[in-house]
């Protein structure tokens, strides 16, 4: 819808969003992901009608895919938004390339994450009981429970991530408005642009607000990751009952976020013609280095996990050994291999710059963290206090469907983003170009 303006424009930024013709690939991908969304809808309906008995969960495995997927998604979200926020604050050149879609990814991940805690309830239609409203039975939520903290965490995350994304997007919406051809598009973008006139005064306040929202995001991301960790850490389950768990979740969460960003960046470069002008090799190089560094930290955290467990007494030892060699050992070692060993490939700069490698490593890291979540939750619950209650858990089809469905939803939203909104920030790019020019 925007190509007509391209030749009129002198700046690189004018070429965003680029590649006017999104080929069949995009359409196919969209259709595929929409189908997955339909599956998601079906499973949710089934859940509400039949009950969560259709899952493989039981006593003691009261949680399975539901919580591990939630933890995984929220980790991705926190990773992305944390990273984006830091870039905004550092005013790092990388932000021009990454922020826009990083913030978008964060937002979509939160939406996917929110599905799970809602529908893992036995009676999901009563979810609002966790919100403090004046009910005629005069009972309030119980604020000592991490689940109530979690309720606030998800709502807040949703709102703040949206704001971070929107504030950054505002000037570009104005640009789209001014370039739009069809009156409808013009009006639509116009309404969302709120009448932005790119006045220097606007810019001044905009910059302040953007940075402040970013500042809010940083503690938020950290606290929310920790809150999620608390959900497990404050229980008595032997392999969860650890003060180190929040750290573990923050580190691995950020890593999965970086993995996702790497994946998305590489995928964009691979699919959108000309975008490598904006997400250039240098950017990829930087992301790669960051991910590598994060993987090394994660390695340290994993080591700490084993060490602290071994120091913590017989039950913990048994629990951790069970995760390492027990029925669910595959999950643990898979996590190590994918989230610690695989990123080591990024030591080579060729790998860092190659798109296929980026996609593979990004996917690998994300999958690795997913396995880590499953290993912690499912593998952790397996060795409880009374051996008489020990059992096995295996996910059922509906659980897989729910999981894949949420991925489909995520993919669909991202595909629409890259189609209708600039995937890298135009205004930031212009700004940089100006600075480079003036310096």
């Amino acid at each position, binding site marked *: 819808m925007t190509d007509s303006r391209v030749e009129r424009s002198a700046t690189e930024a004018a070429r965003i969003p680029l590649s006017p013709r999104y080929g069949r690939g995009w359409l196919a991908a969209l259709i595929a992901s929409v189908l997955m969304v339909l599956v998601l809808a079906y499973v949710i309906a089934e859940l509400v009608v039949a*009950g969560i008995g259709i899952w493989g969960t039981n006593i003691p495995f009261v949680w399975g895919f539901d919580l591990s997927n939630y933890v995984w998604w929220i980790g991705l979200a926190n990773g992305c938004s944390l990273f984006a926020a830091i870039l905004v604050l550092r005013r790092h050149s990388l932000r021009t390339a990454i922020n826009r879609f990083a913030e978008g990814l964060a937002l979509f991940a939160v939406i996917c994450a929110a599905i799970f805690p809602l529908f893992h309830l*036995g009676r999901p239609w009563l979810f609002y*009981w966790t919100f403090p409203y004046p009910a005629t039975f005069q009972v309030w939520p*119980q604020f000592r429970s991490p689940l*109530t903290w979690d309720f606030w965490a998800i709502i807040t995350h949703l709102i703040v991530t949206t704001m971070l994304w929107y504030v950054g997007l505002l000037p570009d919406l104005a640009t789209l408005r001014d370039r739009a051809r069809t009156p409808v598009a013009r009006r639509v973008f116009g309404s969302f642009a709120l009448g932005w006139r790119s006045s220097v005064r606007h810019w001044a306040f905009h910059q302040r607000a953007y940075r402040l929202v970013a500042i809010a995001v940083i503690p938020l991301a950290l606290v929310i990751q920790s809150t999620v960790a608390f959900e497990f850490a404050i229980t*008595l389950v032997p392999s969860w009952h650890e003060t180190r768990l929040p750290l573990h979740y923050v580190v691995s969460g950020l890593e999965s976020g970086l993995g996702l960003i790497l994946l998305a960046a590489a995928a964009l470069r691979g699919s959108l013609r000309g975008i490598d002008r904006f997400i250039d090799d240098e950017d990829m190089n930087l992301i790669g280095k960051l991910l590598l560094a994060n993987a090394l930290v994660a390695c340290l955290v994993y080591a700490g996990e084993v060490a602290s467990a071994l120091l913590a007494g017989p039950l913990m030892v048994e629990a951790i050994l069970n995760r390492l060699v027990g029925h669910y050992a595959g999950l643990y070692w898979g996590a190590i291999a994918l989230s610690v060993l695989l990123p080591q490939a990024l030591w080579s700069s060729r790998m860092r710059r190659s798109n296929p490698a980026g996609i593979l490593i990004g996917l690998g890291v994300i999958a690795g963290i997913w396995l880590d979540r499953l290993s912690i939750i499912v593998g952790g619950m397996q060795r409880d206090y*009374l051996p008489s209650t*020990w059992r*096995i858990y295996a996910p059922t089809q509906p659980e897989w469907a729910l999981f894949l469905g949420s991925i489909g939803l995520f993919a669909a939203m991202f595909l629409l983003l890259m189609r209708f909104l600039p995937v890298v920030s135009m205004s930031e790019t212009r700004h940089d170009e100006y600075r480079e020019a003036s310096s």
Partner: protein
Amino acid sequence: MTGEEDDGRPSDVTGSGPCETRLWRSLEELAGSEEVRRFGGAEFPEAATPETIDRRALLNLMTASLALGGLTGCAVNRQPWGAPLLAQPRLAPQHTPGVPLIFATSLELDGLGRGVLVRSHDGRPVKIDGNPLHPASLGGTDVFMQAEVLSLYDPDRSTVPMAGGMRRSWDDASLYVTQLSHQFQANAGRGLHILLEPCASPTRDRLIALARQTLPEARWYFHAPLTDGNTHVATARVFGRPLDPVLDLMQADVILTLGGDPLGAGAGHIRYAADYAQRRHARDRPLPRLYSAETSPSLTGARADHRLALPPREIEALARQVLDLVRNAAPPPAAPQSLAAIIAGDLRRAGAGGLVVPGREQAADVQAIAHAINVELGAVNRTVRYVEPIIQASTDQSSSLLALAEAIGRGVVDTLLILGGNPAYDAPGDLEFADLIGRVPSSLHLSYYFDETSRVCRWHLPARHALESWGDLRAFDGTAGLRQPVTVPLVEAMTAEDVLAQLVGEAGDGHAHVQATWREVWGEEFDARWPTALEDGVIAGSAAPAASLAAPVGWSPPPAGPPVAAGYSMVVFAPDPSVWDGRFANNGWLQELPKPFTKQVWGNAALMASDTASALGLATGDIATFTHGGRTIEAPIWIMPGHAPDAVTMTLGYGRRAAGRQGSQRGFDAYPLRSSRELWALAGVTIAANGRRDALISTQHHHGMEGRDIVRVVPATGPVNWPVEPRRSMYPDYVYDGNAWGMSIDLDLCLGCNACVVACQAENNVPIVGPDEVAQGREMHWLRIDRYFAGVPDAPETYFQPVPCMHCEKAPCEVVCPVNATVHSSEGLNEMTYNRCVGTRTCSNNCPYKVRRFNWFNYNQKPPAAPDAVQNPEVTVRWRGVVEKCTYCVHRISTARIAAKMEGRPIRDGEVMTACQQACPTRAIVFGNINDPDSAVYRCRENPRSYELLKDLNTRPRTTYLARIAGLGRGSVGGTR
């Protein structure tokens, strides 16, 4: 009669001596009451004479609400105006709507009576407990008594007469029976053959005697798959005539059991368990020493100080050695002593305090030897008394099923009446009995279900449930008890007595027949004694006296048979702990009840030792083919620690083909392998794996304690000394003045009999979830019994540990609930409010004891859910998506609190009894106010054996355990406690 009184039976009731406060009634008495006469005089013509307001009328009055389905306790009522308020035409006297009534009656097992109290809400029986006055119960129950009430409402029960597979009216049916009686009264009963279940019912015996007179040519047979033991053969050998042994475990200092399960199974086991428990904890008496020689693990063996896992032939060898060593008073040979010598030594030392108990499945010789030893020890009339057979009818061989089979074979049977029982299913396989019945021109089967036998008979008549019918039963010790209906018949049906009465042309209903029986016995005392007897459920002083034994000369057993050839393998048959002989197959509570040792549900398996299994190349779950004499069955294998080598144990009662929707096609049927000549142990069975596997469903998958401090065991002698670390907590403690409820469970008394589990399920509307859900790990029992093995796999120690909610003062589950659905009461209860629960399950996740259950589906609405009628109206019926758990029977606490308040007094100790506590035969569970120094539970907590489960977590459980006392060392002197 108020609600709280139904649990109010003093906890210290021991069947000795009459119970001071009698809290249950007979409808008869109500019907006879002044009140009734008064409104007999009222303006209703049909009520003009008192008789018309008999018990049936009263039951009708109370049950009327059922007619309109005004059942409380069902899921939340969605009608705008709620359920209607029912105004009865007239109140049953002394019955307050909504306040339960208690009736005493008798239930039957193996043809012997066990006294129960039935709690009925508005004419709807919902709970069964033991009758403290009844010698076979003393207030305790077993799983079968508890579950009987579910069978009463079984939707699969037979409701109409059938003939040739067609539904028939009752008119046709009674016409048929009348014709029979005319026909046979004409020809003195020639060609009439009647098969009955052996049953110690005076009324039935009277009617049979009557029939034998009026129909002299008729032939009578008795069959039940489990009562055809060798007991009478053995006693006949030793004492010259068949007798029944009755044990007195209070007196026994040294006990040797040869097979069997006196503490865990059979018509007398509740009493025996109670006696043994009472003796174990009698402070002034030495601990009894219990030796068990058995083939497959039994509750008795698990409790024994010494358990010897022996195949049948070695049990016999042991018995012979012990007899010899007891007989010739030679000084015991020098160490190392043989086990037989040690046991014999102990028995001799105990003298009259010694006791040898043979299992009914043992060979006649073994049993005879056991009795001989008792005689030798002078134990007769001290630890054991021999009485004339309680069930007279079935003693002679000519009345066996075998005889009937031959008769049919000879073609002399024109008409076969099968009154009760299910021979087409449970007759020994070699008889091909189902086919035999088919050969009989005219056959009739009276039974509760339209079962395997009904299908092969011409006629089928629905039978009444025990809770719907009149009758009387003798207990294992001969004590007679009356049976009275506690509800109007839910379907039109008959009892065996009714049919017999019709045959002999005796008028009147069951009520009349029973009264007639006892009029004969009591003469003019009748009017005085009948009401009391009915109210007590027990006829005082009717226990069988010790038989006068013509001083038995030293009987010697015949020489042992030849040693069995190699490749030998033996199959031993045993009743199933869940479905007994198969009669309970359609009972969801029992099907879903984890068997004590395997924890298997909804099926059975062939148990064998690991060595045997590996020798045969089998593993748990493999299906093997068992062949003997051309008869073949297939059964899944279960490797059972502590099972004797070279033997396989098969439990009977599964593999039903026509049990009903829940009972059919579950497990495998062992009867076809059974031989009419070797009922209990079958030698020379060939076993072969056939490569297929069966997913056996069990509720426990790990069997060791992994070295954790779970079940504590203290030495039999010497003090208990555990390190007492001081309690520390970051938080200030809440003060629980007033009542502070707590429970103590004595692991030394707990036999693992499961009675508490079913009692809890019945009392608290705990849903049945079905095999698939259990297989997925979703059983709902609020109270489970964990079973751990310790020591060597071949001869392990077996520990049972009932685990209800611990009601932790620092409850981890409450802190993590986001909506305050589970919080603490000011009396220290960990309360669960279902209607506030949103179902995050995080509480269950944070419960280290894993006692919280979750309604994954709407279990109470989807099969095999228990019918609404059996739901306890005092307890909310839970719905999908909420967590539930043990509440310490909080509804009983509320009822007691309300009663106390209304009478302006505090709640008495023992006034609140939890369902599990009430059911426990050994009184292992004690509940009460831990603030009250005079309460039983307080004393238990002060006991040095008292400990908290997972104490290190500092959850401060209100449920505490008393450590198990280790078995006595061999031949060492008994310690005391």
